[in-house]
């Protein structure tokens, strides 16, 4: 049986041919279509986004281009305002430096008659201002809306980022502060413990006796008038020199301190001192003897027949000054607090009070040629007190020897009869001494 050779081959190959199911092709085609649609959506989205960006960039360019004429027009406008409002209102020029002005300034540019009279300029300014207010929603604003939004978003993001950074830094700083405080506390504790150890080591040497020598100067917080006169009398006002100036003189102090170290920081000290206060009353003259009155606070020694006045009674009356010496035996009770220092060097603050016992009371009259004791002050109390405050420095020369120096301020109380504490003296002194610890 003859057969077409083409058909023979076709039939034979068809038998072995494996083809994809017929329904597979439409499915693949449909899926490809969906994919194409998705692709189109994606492409359009990208194009839209790119278009938006281009639009915003175009807006920026437009605004930049417009801002140049704006500056010119604004300066022109400023000129108009200056002319209309007067030179004194120059600060108001800043009011028109607004981007929104660009259009209305352009509109009125041709109208701006800079050299016109003041009235015209005022009218024009009014026109510009009105138009500015009425054109708040200009197309320029609309075009720059997206740009501004975009800027706002970027700025907000930056602000948030900075805020979070600042918060982080604050947190970090707080942490560091806490750590440092803890470290400081630890160190202080450690130092205190070392001090305590040292203190315990030195327990056997808690007492310290310090012979001291010093100098001091005295004064009064009042007008620093003498206390040797008396209250002004009507009869002989010039005789009583109660308002004559009195100045303090440098005097010496000596004695010894006994210090007891109570803790590693606190010490108690007392002692015995001889302390002298000296005052000089000047501008007096020898006066005639007035037997019927004794108007001053001076108790004259027997046989002394001179008196004093602040005006010369006769021509050639000899000038004289009175030197008053008040010597106290002082017993201080003070606390010392060690502020800082180490085993070698310590700085202490000192506070306390003193009992004062009047030990010597003398008034001497001094002329150019002689000096003579004339008596004593009659207005001094035998016992008085003082409030003491000062700074004390210790330098340990050895285990037992301590160089001590202190600067003290002492305000006296209850020094005088018939005078309030305003007239009581104060005393500023410094003393040094070498103490022995045992």
């Amino acid at each position: 049986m003859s057969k077409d050779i083409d058909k023979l081959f076709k039939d034979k190959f068809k038998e072995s041919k494996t083809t994809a199911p017929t329904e597979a092709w439409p499915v693949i085609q449909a899926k490809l279509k969906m994919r194409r649609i998705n692709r189109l959506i994606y492409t359009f989205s990208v194009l839209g986004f790119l278009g938006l960006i281009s639009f915003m960039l175009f807006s920026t360019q437009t605004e930049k281009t417009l801002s140049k004429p704006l500056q010119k027009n604004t300066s022109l406008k400023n000129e108009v305002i200056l002319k209309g409002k007067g030179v004194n209102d120059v600060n108001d020029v800043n009011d028109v430096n607004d981007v929104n002005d660009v259009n209305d300034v352009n509109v009125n540019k041709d109208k701006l008659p800079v050299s016109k009279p003041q009235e015209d300029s005022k009218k024009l300014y009014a026109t510009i201002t009105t138009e500015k207010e009425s054109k708040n929603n200009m197309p320029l604003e609309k075009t720059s809306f997206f740009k501004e939004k975009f800027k706002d978003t970027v700025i907000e993001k930056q602000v948030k980022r900075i805020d979070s950074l600042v918060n982080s830094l604050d947190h970090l700083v707080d942490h560091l502060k806490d750590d440092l405080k803890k470290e400081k506390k630890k160190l202080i504790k450690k130092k205190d413990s070392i001090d305590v150890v040292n203190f315990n080591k030195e327990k056997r040497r808690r007492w310290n006796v310090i012979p001291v020598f010093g100098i001091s100067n005295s004064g009064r917080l009042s007008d620093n008038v003498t206390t040797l006169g008396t209250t002004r009398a009507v009869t002989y006002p010039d005789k009583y020199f109660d308002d004559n100036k009195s100045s303090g003189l440098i005097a010496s102090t000596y004695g010894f301190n006994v210090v007891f170290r109570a803790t590693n920081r606190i010490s108690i000290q007392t002692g015995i001192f001889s302390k002298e206060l000296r005052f000089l009353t000047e501008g007096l003259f020898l006066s005639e003897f007035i037997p019927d009155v004794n108007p001053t606070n001076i108790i004259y020694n027997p046989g002394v027949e001179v008196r004093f006045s602040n005006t010369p009674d006769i021509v050639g009356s000899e000038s004289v000054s009175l030197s008053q010496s008040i010597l106290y035996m002082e017993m201080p009770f003070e606390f010392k607090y060690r502020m800082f220092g180490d085993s070698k060097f310590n700085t202490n603050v000192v506070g306390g009070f003193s009992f004062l016992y009047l030990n010597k009371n003398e008034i001497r009259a001094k002329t150019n040629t002689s000096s003579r004791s004339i008596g004593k002050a009659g207005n001094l109390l035998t016992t008085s007190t003082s409030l003491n405050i000062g700074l004390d420095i210790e330098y340990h020369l050895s285990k037992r020897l301590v160089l001590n120096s202190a600067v003290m301020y002492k305000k006296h109380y209850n020094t005088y009869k018939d005078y309030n504490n305003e007239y009581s003296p104060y005393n500023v002194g410094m003393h040094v001494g070498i103490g022995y610890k045992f």
Partner: protein
Amino acid sequence: MVIFKDIKKFKHKGSFEGWAKRVTVNVALQKFRKKSSIRFDDLEESKIPEEKVFIDIEEKDISLNFLLSLIHKLPPQYQLIFNLYVLDEYSHKEISEILDISIGTSKSNLSRARQLLKKEINTMKKLQL
């Protein structure tokens, strides 16, 4: 692989099946051309023999592998046109466009391929006898 790679180029005009088939043929042709330089036999239109070639044989007496081996034995130009025309069912016009040859050349080469195949089949038949 080429279909997957070039699937974006599918324009959705016509069926995907047809497009895929065309891509496959084109790729095969490209490979074929690279491997060997093909010279097609040009014959005058008048000398082109009868289109149909008949052979006296039972289909069951012949195997697919044998037929494949016969195709492989053909010279490349005959092999190519026989495959395109008979197995892939391209017309002479399409073949002429694909291979950039004349329709007559396509017809003559196909005819030669048929004659050679017939000869081979007959030879085999004689050997079997």
